[in-house]
């Protein structure tokens, strides 16, 4: 089905954009948003395929991914706040305590 291909291609494009974003941005929050973008790209794939196959499992999966994303946002953002409080910065390059 052509329609499905479109969705999948769109999803791949969004995913790649998200990847580039994670790799090139220095702001942690933006990186985090790009990760959300990647997750959403995957979600789109799930929903499209679910629709195509006539099976709701994929959509349930999307539901779980959303839940995880929500949890991730809560914890992640809390960490960013903590990080900012310690370092006065939100730049990923400043987080290098794990360095050798």
């Amino acid at each position, binding site marked *: 089905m052509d329609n499905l291909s479109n969705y999948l291609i769109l999803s791949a494009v*969004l995913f*790649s*954009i998200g*990847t*580039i974003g994670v790799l090139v941005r220095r702001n942690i929050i933006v990186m985090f948003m790009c990760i959300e973008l990647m997750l959403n790209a995957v979600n789109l794939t799930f929903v499209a395929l679910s629709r195509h196959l006539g099976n709701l499992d994929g959509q*349930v999966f999307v539901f779980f991914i959303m839940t995880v994303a929500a949890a991730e946002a809560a914890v992640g953002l809390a960490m960013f706040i903590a990080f900012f409080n310690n370092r006065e910065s939100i730049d990923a390059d400043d987080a290098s305590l794990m360095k050798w």
Partner: protein
Amino acid sequence: MDISTIFFTIVSVVAVVSALLVVTCKNPINSALSLILTFFCLATFYAMLEAPFMAAIQVIVYAGAIMVLIVFTIMLLNIRADANKKSFHNVPLGIVVGIITLLTAGSFLARGKVSDLPGQITPNIIHQVGHTELIGAVMFTEFILPFEITSILLLAAIVGAVILAKRNLS
């Protein structure tokens, strides 16, 4: 070219452009707003894919809850584009990896085969029974265990977020 294809094209262009804006905008608040736009586009797609419940959730959870949280954080930390500071690094290499990712995904799509077996959930059934009910039925029968585990995960996330934020604010 029927109307749905045109609509799909328009919305997908908006989605891609807004996604690019997320990556390119120097100011994080702009990125966040662009991301919200992308999420709305995706919600549109879900609706087009006969998944109204997912569309609703997409708007409520992502655009509503998560993005509000992110915007709130940005505002709280008072982050703005700093002209003196670089907001990008390794751009060419990033683009190369992105393109390779795209190519890889493309070749997946090109080579992979999607089975054409029709499932039981046709648009008709969705219209008759209702999407939400269908999802709910699956969620609370077949996926009850993951569902419960997810709820524990959320609980843990709440506790974790509280502790993380609290300890460092004091």
